[in-house]
């Protein structure tokens, strides 16, 4: 497929990653007490490859009784796990990290097949970072008393964790690693369209010989997640997903004493000043919005360009977009993979229509879109204003809205004028301007002259309606500990 995208002097031969060495079972049950358990109602759903709509496996649909079984397993495992010498607990995490590294190629291929993301990303970002998170947190397990001066630390108990479909294995790692390092036991619910790498992770957990019940994985849809959120014996909810569901969760657990961390939506401003290194900035814009087809909560989906350089930036952006390779996620040359699901594609298309109807100018490079599967060409809207719906609402797709500005004050005001506050980007060659902007952005992560960088040592999480709590770094530990 990739070879259809002939652009200028560049023409790539197809270079698909082999799927020969991977193993996916035909059917996956629930992972409870380190065993595969059939769902109580015997219901399963299909997990498909969004790039060709072929079925990959059928996956168990857990109901509230299954969730209860998983929570009971986690509760039973908790006292022993929490009392395990911390050094030993840490060593389990190191084991998991190593096994993920050993199986990284298999994980990367399955991640790209199940979720649609380019193999270049799953291979170079998702899987190595997932292993790195377990490695980093493994080292914290026996050092927690140094993280919070003057405080006693204790684990919370059973953590219910609900993760999204955009970075399936990585989000599982972000959630599991700190929870386990801090001595909690876990019931994890993967997203329904991307359960497979979490279920492969269950095999890693078996292989690492974690005590039974410490990690339990229940697959299913929204009702499975709701059963987990509302289970009375869960002490902590960690959720990554939409702001609407995050609010629903907060209301559901009100008055229960459950602790929560919510990592929700975003509508990040990416700000380009006239004194920026424009070519680098253009690469940063492209990476900021088209990374993982824009299925990124911190995506730089609102571009602010200083008026004096807008023509140059837009021209270069369009040229660069024309060189993006869209197609087979398993092809190593692919830049833009498949949209994760039919439903998400419909959402994105709805916003493209809204943008056009609002009179914005839409640009898409001429690409061959594969016939089967779910695809959306990288899209640019120019002439956008603060009031436009595509500027205000999270699209979660490869859609960039461009606005212009003249002064620093103006762009600070516009950039912060959103209910979200997850991330922001600033591009300028002037150091003092960087610090002025980064300190004024009401956002939890600010990238200056770079974008979409992640690391286990670096806390991630939002201000305002992008949620609360941090994941990663020393700050991420607090979400899984009781301080006193």
């Amino acid at each position, binding site marked *: 497929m990739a070879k259809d995208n002939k652009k200028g002097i560049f023409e790539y031969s197809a270079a698909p990653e082999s799927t020969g060495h991977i193993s996916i079972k035909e059917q996956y049950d629930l992972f409870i007490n380190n065993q595969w358990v059939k769902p109580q109602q015997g219901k399963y759903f299909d997990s498909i490859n969004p790039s060709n709509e072929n079925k990959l496996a059928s996956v168990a649909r857990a109901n509230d009784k299954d969730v209860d079984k998983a929570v009971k397993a986690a509760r039973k495992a908790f006292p022993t796990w929490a009392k395990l010498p911390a050094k030993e607990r840490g060593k389990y995490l190191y084991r998991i990290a190593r096994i993920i590294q050993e199986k990284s190629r298999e994980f990367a291929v399955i991640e790209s097949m199940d979720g649609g993301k380019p193999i270049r990303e799953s291979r170079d970002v998702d899987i190595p970072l997932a292993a*790195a998170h377990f490695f980093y947190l493994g080292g914290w397990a026996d050092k927690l008393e140094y993280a919070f*001066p*003057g*405080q006693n630390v204790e684990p919370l108990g059973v953590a219910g964790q609900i993760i999204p479909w955009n970075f399936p294995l990585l989000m599982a790692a972000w959630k599991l690693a700190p929870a386990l390092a801090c001595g909690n036991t876990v019931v994890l619910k993967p997203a329904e369209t991307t359960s497979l790498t979490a279920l492969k992770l269950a095999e890693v957990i078996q292989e690492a010989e974690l005590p039974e019940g410490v990690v339990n994985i229940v697959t299913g849809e929204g009702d499975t997640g709701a059963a987990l959120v509302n289970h009375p014996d869960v002490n902590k909810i960690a959720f990554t997903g939409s*702001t609407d569901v*995050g*609010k*629903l969760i*907060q*209301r559901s*657990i*009100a*008055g229960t004493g459950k602790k929560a961390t*919510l990592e*929700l939506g975003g509508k990040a401003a990416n700000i380009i000043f006239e004194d920026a290194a424009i070519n680098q900035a253009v690469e940063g814009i492209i990476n900021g919005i088209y990374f993982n087809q824009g299925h990124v909560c911190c995506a730089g989906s609102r571009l602010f360009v200083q008026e004096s350089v807008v023509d140059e930036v837009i021209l270069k952006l369009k040229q660069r977009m024309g060189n993006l390779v869209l197609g087979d996620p398993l092809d190593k040359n692919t830049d833009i993979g498949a949209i994760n699901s039919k439903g998400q594609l419909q959402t994105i298309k709805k916003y493209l229509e809204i943008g056009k109807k609002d009179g914005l100018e839409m640009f898409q490079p001429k690409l061959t879109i594969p016939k089967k599967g779910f695809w959306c060409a990288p899209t640019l809207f120019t002439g956008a204003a603060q009031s436009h719906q595509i500027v205000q609402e999270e699209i979660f797709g490869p859609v960039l809205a461009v606005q212009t500005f003249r002064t620093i004050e103006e762009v600070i005001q516009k950039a912060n004028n959103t*209910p979200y506050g997850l991330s922001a980007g600033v591009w300028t060659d002037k150091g003092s301007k*960087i610090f002025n902007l*980064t*300190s004024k952005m009401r*956002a*939890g*992560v*600010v*990238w*200056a*002259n*770079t974008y979409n*960088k992640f*690391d286990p*040592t*670096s*806390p*991630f*999480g939002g*201000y*305002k*309606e992008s*949620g*609360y709590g*941090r994941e990663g*770094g*020393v*700050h991420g530990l607090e979400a899984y500990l009781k*301080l006193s």
Partner: protein
Amino acid sequence: MGRLKVLKTYKLYIGGAFPRTESGRYYQPKAEDEKPMANMCLASRKDFRNSVVAARKAVAGWSGRTAYNRSQILYRIAEMLENNRAHFEEELILQGSSKEEATAEVDASIDRWVYYAGWCDKYTQIFGSVNPVASSHFNFSTLEAMGVVAGICPEDHALLGPTSILAPIIASGNTAIVVASKSRPLSSISLAEVLNNSDVPGGVINILTGDAQELLPHIGAHMDVNAVWYLGNDAAAWKQLQVDAAGNLKRISDINSDKGLMDAGWETPYVLKAFTEVKTTWHPIEVIGASGSGY
């Protein structure tokens, strides 16, 4: 017949001014002898909304001050309180404290302002970090004020209550709105008079008297409040606040609600930390040549 005493009119404190409640309502908290202590304003939803506007307007200026400057202003509050301690003790006795209790509470309140004055320019050093990312980037995390924070005073400790809420909230650069103790509201408004005389910019601190139970749903649901600190012990109200707060995902905390205001363990920087956000900043580090750093 001796001289007739001039009585004080207690009003609200909003945006650096002392307005009466727009609602025109009042209530009479009773002293131990069942006599009314004063006619207090029964603040309305509209008074709260006005306070939010004043507090929001003050955020940029206050959080933009240097930490050293905020520290000096908090210390100045302690100086002004010390200067007026006789009045505060007298007022605490009127509100039901013994002489000894009143002295101890004024001491503790002055010292609490000094304690948090000291944290203004230190908490980011304790809770911030430089993060050793596995790529060529400089990466650091620091704490920033959340913005507008509302707090409900506990019913006891008329002076130490508002002091304990306000000092850690504003130390990091937040602006604050507090609802005074309903039964012992006098000290909160006298504190406002001290604040107004202590270089605290108008709007940074706003104090309402009235019925916290009436105001709490409006506080929880207000879309321009960033956080609420609840120190009460009404489980139903605390639950409702969590529901209401979901509207804009405002941060809510009951930190230290399990501790007495006079407890030695009350004072910690974790109270201050509860009303800050962690911000992480990335910037590339240039690497010249493939073999490593150029210089």
